[in-house]
């Protein structure tokens, strides 16, 4: 009952407990990735060609991998390759090569021992220096990793449960780009990644990161490019081994070769954006422009023929497979939700450049001289389409007849099935 004894014991227990606890907690508050962590080699199937069919329902959350595994079923009609079938020797070589060139999550790099000046300058242009990447990896781990995953595979712990699924950078495919259409193997420019980062993607779970510091955003962009390069090299080294066509040289040579190609593509893309024509209209021309845009949009055989995919202006568009093997649908343009940004220039870029990975073709009206009837009255059909798409969700902006044919005539009893 004596409390003196208990106090003494208490002190003793405390003295024992605190040193015991400190090592337990010492690993906490880790800014960067654990040093011993390496990028794991790809294990999920590679979608080499997505199925062409359409569907009415989307994939249930959490079922992404199951869904992709089923793509190669004959009735679905896609083609996939399984990285698990990679022979042990190649696997080891690939792992070593990738780790040597791209480093680990804690110390990411794009490092080529015997790089020529051109490659070095490309790395410099794309800001893939070690310091930026290390900073990017810290920021990425904190803000992005739980959805996009350590390797940028879009399979972080939360990733599979989000619909639309987070972007898988490892294919080197991106949707929203302002890269000039002439560029081969279009990659997004740094500004495009910045835009996505700052504005988020409306209508998905990608939030805006506009409040990050300037340097953090830049570092993130670099790190995303790094992950994308690593993933693409990995994928296109695996692909010939898996589909049986085989490699010409060693695995490492292949990786280095691919890296050179991709760096080239990224640097080229970064250098050249779409230059939109000057906006040709004054305030008062808007209604006429919207009407022209409507006609271009709905003309099923025109150069744009948007209505063929954006059925009923996207309201009744079925799902299709994109190049990642996930289901997406042509946007519902009446909803006023613009994933790639809602500025006119953003919409212009998408119409002009298309969205390659989800197989949205680019509109091509050629130049003014060659296509007289599309460019009549000095009107710019691209801007007509932009104006129409921008006004589409706002019925008050549309000319009366256009509005009636989009939203129906509401003054009298609606007639349908009377075609």
């Amino acid at each position, binding site marked *: 009952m004596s409390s003196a004894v208990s106090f003494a014991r208490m002190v003793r227990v405390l003295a024992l407990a605190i040193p015991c606890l400190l090592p337990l907690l010492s690993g906490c508050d880790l800014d960067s990735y654990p040093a011993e962590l390496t990028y794991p080699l790809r294990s999920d199937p590679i979608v080499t060609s997505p199925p062409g069919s359409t569907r009415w329902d989307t994939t249930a959350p959490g079922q992404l991998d199951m869904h992709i595994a089923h793509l190669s079923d004959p009735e679905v009609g896609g083609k996939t390759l399984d990285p698990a079938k990679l022979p042990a020797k190649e696997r080891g070589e690939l792992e070593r090569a990738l780790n040597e060139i791209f480093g680990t999550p804690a110390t990411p790099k794009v490092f080529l021992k015997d790089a020529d000046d051109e490659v070095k300058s490309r790395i410099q242009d794309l800001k893939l220096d070690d310091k930026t990447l290390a900073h990017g990896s810290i920021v990425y781990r904190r803000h992005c990793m739980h959805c996009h995953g350590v390797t940028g595979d879009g399979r972080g712990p939360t990733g599979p449960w989000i619909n639309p699924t987070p972007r898988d950078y490892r294919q080197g495919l991106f949707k929203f780009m302002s890269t000039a259409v002439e560029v081969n193997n279009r990659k997004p420019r740094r500004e495009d990644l910045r835009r996505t980062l700052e504005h988020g993607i409306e209508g998905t779970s990608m939030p805006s990161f506009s409040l990050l510091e300037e340097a953090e955003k830049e570092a993130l962009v670099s790190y995303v490019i790094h992950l994308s390069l690593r993933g693409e090299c990995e994928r296109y080294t695996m692909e010939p081994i898996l589909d049986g066509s085989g490699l010409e040289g060693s695995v490492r040579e292949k990786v280095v070769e691919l890296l050179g190609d991709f760096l080239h593509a990224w640097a080229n893309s970064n250098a050249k954006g779409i230059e939109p024509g000057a906006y040709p209209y004054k305030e008062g021309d808007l209604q006429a422009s919207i009407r022209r845009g409507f006609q271009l949009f709905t003309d*099923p055989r025109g150069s744009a023929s948007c209505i063929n995919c954006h059925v009923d202006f996207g*309201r009744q568009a079925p799902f299709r497979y994109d190049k990642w093997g996930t289901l997406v649908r042509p946007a519902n343009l009446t909803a006023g939700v613009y994933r790639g940004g809602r500025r006119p220039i953003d919409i212009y870029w998408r119409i002009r450049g298309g969205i390659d990975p989800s197989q949205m073709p680019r509109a091509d009206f050629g130049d003014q001289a060659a296509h007289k009837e599309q460019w009549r009255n000095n009107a710019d059909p691209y801007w007509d389409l932009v104006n129409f798409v921008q006004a589409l969700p706002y019925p008050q902006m549309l000319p009366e007849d256009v509005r009636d044919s989009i939203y*129906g005539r*509401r003054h009298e009893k609606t007639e*349908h099935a009377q075609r």
Partner: protein
Amino acid sequence: MTQVVYERPQEHMGMPLPTPKVAMWLFLVTEIMFFTALIGTYIVLRHGTPAQSPFKWPAPHQVHLIEWIGALNTFVLICSSFTVVLAHHAAVKADMKKATSYVAITLALGGVFLGIKAYEYNSKFQHDILPGHIGESLPYPAKGGGDNDLKAIEREKHEHATGMQYFHRVQLQLEAIKKSSIDAEIQKECNALLDAMTATTAAEGQAVAFHRPPSPAEVGERVNEILEKAEKKGVTLHLTPAIPFGNLWASCYFAMTGFHALHVLGGVVVFAIILLMAVIGRLGPQHSTMLELVGLYWHFVDIVWIFLFPLLYLV
């Protein structure tokens, strides 16, 4: 029991009620709260829907609810309440034969109630009036222009999105109807609707002649017309009707009547056990309290139905 538990019965401290009866009343208290919460939910949800405008709570005929069947069910339950009280009465008078027969009648009436309920449910299944199955989108009422239009369009944008599920279901149903052979006129109308829904705009080939496919709301309206016609002709048509707030109605209806039916089922099981006891000769006058308790429960179930019937069928 008062006289045996304690050495000094005069000092019994409890209520002058048998313990099981106290427990039964306490159990009924929890049951009251259970159904109060259910009914409260129903009233709140129903009250939350607008009274004027086409978007009001569905009328019984819209959801194929026949009032007289509900009234009949009420009568069946009242009868069973009456017989169960007579059974208890007979048991008190130690007339176990009479009690047994009343219990048997009650059991039968409970069975009848459940049978009628099953019939009603079946008609809901037939008409596809199930949670998650009902098309709810109808065009917004056209009144004047201007602002009215804008509100209507804003609303339609939302409903168009969610209504596509309905659109596709109707499409599948219409395809099935196309393959079947029913009344020629109805089938023609169905096919016309299907054509309108599936025709692509590309077929015309003219830039100006753009035709909008019907929206889910318009499909719903058309489906309702076809269903009405079919009903008049006596044709059964497996098409999902468009009923504003139908889903909420179905949710409430099935939740409330479902839980009531489960309670009835529970009572029926107990009556069956009592009957079994009577058959093997285990039922005696000592079970009169048990009969009273079962009766209490049964009357409570009756009272719940007395409220559910007007709330769901009439008001």
